[in-house]
Each structure stands twice: as C-alpha cells, then as structure tokens.
C-alpha cells in the first residue's frame, strides 16, 4: 500500500473556513437549527457569465475546488471524485414544483440539469478541462468515505496520481421538513454552540463543500498523511469497538499512539449512544475534539472533521472551539483518529498522521 498525502484543501462551511490564514479563532453561533455557509466573494473565483448560470451550491462547490487547487499549487488533476448525501435538493425541489404546478407543461431543463448529483464533478472537470477519472458517490453518510476510498485505491496502484476528492451537501428546506418528520432534527431551537448540552433527540442541519487534493507523493504544501479510511455499517457498541481496534492494528498503531480523536457526534442523545461508548471505553484516555456544533450535521460533514484534523496537524494548534471541557491536550499532535457517525447508521474511521517530510513534532 502506498502512502497518501493531503496536499491541499479548500473548504466552505458555516464558519469562515474559506480564509486559509484563519483557524476558528472566532466562531459563529446559529439559533434556528439550520447552519448556512459563509461564502467568499464568488466573483474573485468564477467569471461573471458562468456565475450567473450556477446555483448557489454549484458556486460554493466550484469555489471550494478552486481554493483547493490554489492551496495545493495544482493546475492539473488526474481525476475528480465527488460525494453528496442529498445532492442539489434545492434545484430538485424547484424542478418538482415546476412539474406539479405547471402540470408538466413548459418546464425548463435548468433545474433538472443542475439537480443531478454529478453536476459538480462534471463542472469541475469542465473548468479544469480534466478528461481523467470522474465519479460521484451518493451513499448517505458514507458518500465521502467511498469517494476517498476510490482515490486511495487508485493511488495505491499508481502513487504518481493526483485526485481532487470533494464532498458537498446543502441545508435544503425540503430535507429539514422531512428530517423533522423523522426526528432527525431537534424541534426546539437551540444555540448551535451549545449543541452538546441539548437533551432533545435529533441534531441541527448544516451544510458545506470541501475538496481535498490527494496524492501518493508529498509536496511542500502537504498538510498531513492520510493513512487509511474505513466504513462500518450499522454496528452495535461491540461491533464498533472491534472495528476501531482492528482498524488501528491493521495500520500498525495503537490507541496509546493516538494523540486526539475527532468525534463526529451530532448532539443527538439517542444516535450518539454507540459512538459515545468509545469515549467511555477504548478511547477513554484519548483527548476528544468535536465539530458538529460548528458545521451542523449533514451526510458529508466528515469533510469538516477531516479539514479540522489536517489543520491541527499542519498548524500544531488546537482551537478552543473544538475542545471538550474536561480533556487535556498534548503539546505535539502527530496522530489523529476521526470517528464519525451519521444518523446512528453510517460510521466511519479515518487515520491521519504528521507527514515525516514536513518534520514537526
């Protein structure tokens, strides 16, 4: 198996993550259980003619991909792999309303075209003139992990390859309505920053778009090494515990060597139960970090967690906003384990390490 390096990241989220020099020094609280992206001036990334034609989420996604390429210092990529849970649901909703309200007459194709799940991977390919590998995964809380796995396997085959791997989801109104029906979201408004104090079932809705430049070759821009990633479908507490043990063992490491765990719990007392059991058990001694009070919950929210882990390793700094009160944190951070869950069904593990080429602790 080859090494895999994160050589660039671009991320747009409900926090000001699009400015690379910032690192959650100031965080923004949301009060309606819906967190929307803070966006840069798109005109500095996308030409005005194209900008007019793109939906909000396509603008956000395309800009995240450009931020990533700039950060990686890449003008070419061998492949583009995107992922999403619900895709461009706002466009899908508009198209459905047209069909129903106009009784299937005089329907415009725009929302249909911009609503397809692979619209972003196609758009990024088009803007980069990248005729290489192109794929899109839409497997709920596993979508990004499967995109990542696709890239990792190809890099294992050919370490010279570069991939742009992205995840996006929007806080669509339709999804909020259906999510409330199914108890996925809290019904009473809370302050997002106090998400983990809430005792009501459900979580808060977030959104974001992120791209990661992955390669088998490190560069001077390398953030960290991405050792491995794995998904675990519908485990109970024991299944997840065994999966974590096996995952660490397969990657020649132990719990004792993990400096911090980024925990993707969603502030939902019911659905956090299994992931929470790790903190009380096998990972009890490892300092914990959380992020969904900053990003909100969405199918590809692990992208925020991955950016957070890579940024902590790169900067050797842990922002106060992601710390858990009673944890103490080591000075040097060289190994981070990300454990995520979505709706108590999709669990995933990602292991990050300080890149030897970069030196560090």
């Amino acid at each position, binding site marked *: 198996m080859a090494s895999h390096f994160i050589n660039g990241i671009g991320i747009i989220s409900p926090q000001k993550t699009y400015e690379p020099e910032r690192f959650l020094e100031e965080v923004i609280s949301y009060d309606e259980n819906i967190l929307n992206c803070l966006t840069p001036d798109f005109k500095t990334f996308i030409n005005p003619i194209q900008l007019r034609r793109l939906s909000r989420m396509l603008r956000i996604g395309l800009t995240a991909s450009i931020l990533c390429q700039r950060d990686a210092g890449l003008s070419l990529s061998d492949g*583009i792999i995107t992922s999403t*849970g*619900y*895709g461009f*649901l706002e466009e*899908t909703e508009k*198209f*459905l*309303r047209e*069909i*129903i309200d106009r*009784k*299937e*007459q005089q*329907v*415009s*194709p725009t929302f*249909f*075209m911009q609503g*397809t*799940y*692979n*619209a972003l*991977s*196609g*758009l990024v*390919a*088009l803007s*980069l*003139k*990248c*005729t*290489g*590998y*192109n*794929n*899109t*995964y*839409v*497997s*709920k809380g*596993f*979508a990004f992990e*499967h995109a990542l796995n*696709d890239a990792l*396997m*190809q890099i*294992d*085959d050919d370490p010279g390859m570069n991939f742009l791997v992205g995840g996006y989801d929007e806080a669509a109104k*339709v999804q909020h*309505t*259906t999510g*409330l*029906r*199914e108890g996925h979201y809290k019904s009473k408004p809370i302050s997002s920053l106090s998400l983990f104090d809430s005792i009501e079932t459900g979580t808060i809705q977030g959104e974001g778009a992120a791209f990661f430049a992955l390669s088998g070759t490190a560069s001077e821009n390398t953030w960290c090494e991405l050792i491995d990633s794995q*998904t675990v*479908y*519908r485990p109970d507490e024991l299944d997840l515990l065994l999966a974590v043990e096996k995952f660490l063992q397969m990657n020649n490491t132990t719990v004792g060597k993990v400096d911090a765990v980024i925990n993707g719990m969603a502030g939902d007392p019911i659905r956090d139960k299994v992931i929470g059991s790790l903190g009380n058990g096998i990972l009890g001694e490892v300092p914990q970090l959380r992020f969904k009070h900053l990003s909100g919950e969405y199918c590809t929210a692990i992208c925020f967690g991955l950016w957070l882990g890579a940024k902590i390793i790169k900067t050797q700094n842990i922002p106060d906003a992601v710390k858990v009160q009673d944890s103490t944190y080591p000075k040097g951070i060289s190994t981070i384990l990300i454990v995520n869950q979505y709706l108590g*069904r999709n669990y995933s593990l990602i292991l990050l390490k300080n890149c030897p080429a970069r030196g560090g602790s």
Partner: protein
Amino acid sequence: MSQRVFITGVGIITSIGKNTAENLDSLLNRHHGFGTLELLDTVHKASFPCCEIKLDDAQLKIMAGAEGPGFTRTTLLGLIALKEAVRSAGLSETELKTCGLISATTTGGIREFEKNFYDILNPDQHGVFEQFVDTANPGEHCERMADTLGIRRYVSTVSTACSSSANALMQGAALIKSGKMARVICGGTEALSRFTINGFNALMILDSEHCRPFDQTRKGLNLGEGAAYLVLESESSMVSRAKHPLAILSGYGNANDAFHQTSSSPEGTGAFKAMTAALNSAGISAEAVQYINAHGTATENNDLSEGTGLKRVFGENIPPFSSTKPFTGHTLAAAGSIEAVYSLMAIQKSIVWPSLNFHHTIPELNIVPQTELQTVSEIKNVLSNSFGFGGNTSSLLMTAV
C-alpha cells in the same frame, strides 16, 4: 499482483423480461418492451412511448418478497434483480453478510416523492405517504436493499447519470483487485418517473417514435425502467465456494468528456478515452473485441460522438456493434448493468444482438450497426459503453472464461 475479477451470478428485470431467461428469450426473438404508459401517471402518456414493466408495485412487492412499508418501485425492481443475482451465484446468508453492495441510481425513489410532494412538505399532513418521506435521497434504496438481504460489509451508492451502474461495476472490481473485498454485488436500478420524463422532455431529446440508434433519422431516446446486478468475486473466493464463473470482468475505463454539462464532444473525447482505457487495463488490442454493446441512446448528439469515438479506437474495422436500447428503452442508471448482462449473454451464446429500427446510415459516420441477430463462431471479448450527463464516460470489457 492484482487479482482477476470474476462474474459468478447475474439478475435482471426489464420491460422485456422479469428474469435472465425471459430477457434472453426476448432478445432472441426481437421482442421489444415498448408500449403506452399504464402505471405511471403523466400528461405525456400519449406523447412518448416508454418501456414500462407492466407489473404494479403490489405485484413487484410480492415478487421481491419485501415486507413492511417504505419500498419504492426503484427499490423493488432492484431487490428482484438482486435476489436473482444472489441465487444465481449461490450465495448463502452467511456469505451475503461479508459481501459488498454497490448500487447505482439517477434519482432514487423520486417517483414516490413527487407523487406525495405537497403532502410531505406539509407538517400537518399525515398518512400512508409518510413511508416515502426520505425517498428523494439517492442512497436510501441501497441501504434498504442491503438491510433486506443482510448485507453489511460495504454499502455504497453511485450516481453519474446514465453511466452510473457501469461505474458501480468498476468500483466493485477495484475493491476486489485491491484485495479489500472478496465479493461485491454491483448494478443499478431505475423506475420511470415524471421527474425524468419531464427532464428529458425539457431537454428535447425524447423521441415520439421508437428510438433509432445510429440512424440518420434518429430524434432522441425513449425511457425505460429496470434493474440488473452482477456478482463480482475474487478467484480465491470463487474457488473456495467451488463455483464456476460466467465470465471475467477483464477491463474497464472511466473518463470525462469535459465538453459540456449535457452534451458530448463532437470528437468523442470521453468515449475514446474510456474505451481505450478499458482495452489497456485488460491488456488486449482493439482487434481482439468481437462485439460492442454501444451506449447508442439515439440522441443526435450521443450517437455522433460515440460513433466518432468508435472510429478513433477501431479505425475502419469496427467489430459488430449494436445498441439494445430499442429493446429496453434507456434505463438510465440501470443501463450499464443491464447491458453488461446482455453482453455476458452474447458471450455465452456466441450471438451478436441486433440494433432494432436502423435503416439509414449517418453520412458523417458511415458506420452500420448489426441489424440482424447473428450467431458467430466465438465471442471472446465484449466492450460495453455507458455515457452520461456531466461528461461521464465509462466502458467495461467482459471476457469469456
């Protein structure tokens, strides 16, 4: 060394048959699946012929052996094909647990979502429609199928428009080659919906007559529905189960046309790259291909681009090729896996399937698809193309054992 990927089971349901045997019989007898829409309620019923499976959801549910609420037509079609594939590969319940499932979709259960849209959006409304509130999610059908069969190890959904299930098969093959998985069931499922009919109608690429791939008079595609899944297996897994392979998934290629959001390049860039990559990954030359199951949607744009791509790969010696979409309609996300099954049947029977409805050669291309069913001495290698919106182009190469 990277492993070979064997196909050890298949399952399929389309408008020309509810299982493998019926589909084969229809192909052999030129029975297409066209008709007037009876089950989908749309104002375009009389305008556009479609290849609809004439079984209602209650009948499908019995066939699928599904119990409880929440099964969309997409899921039911998928389950029927998936269960046939599992039986065909002889996988036990225990073996299924360690299988992966990679399913492809364009719009998940949008058919049920669109039908109940305003009820779903009104929080005060309650009723039987509530079983479908999450069916606009594309991954929902795959998790439900996995849960029904007890598949746990790897549950993944791919969506790259009309090339979706070809990419699902490629990803399954990659997982086996890497040694990460021993068995992965891959394919796609697609139910007709007002969403897709109106989408393609708005793009003005639906033909009001039966589609005519690679014909000068072609005016567009016809939509169809169906599902197909193939069981992919590593050599060691197959040997340990004493199972004989049906064929080898020997090569695959994925590229992007990078030309336009919904149309293909006149140079056939993506088509050329995908086919070339498939041949290269299998380590065979273009001359070794005996049959090509083309994407051949019969849109003006696709056939010209694909035809140009074919000429770039094969020169003046294009092997017999056909599009089976005049049999099944364009089944979108399921097309890649349905046509992979037809390609496999071509290998097994040494038969080149006919392209129906072809009469007039496209002057710019000057290529003629196979129009009659033809038995040949041997089909060793088949190339199967699937292209889609977003510039996605994929090509699979299947080889006789």
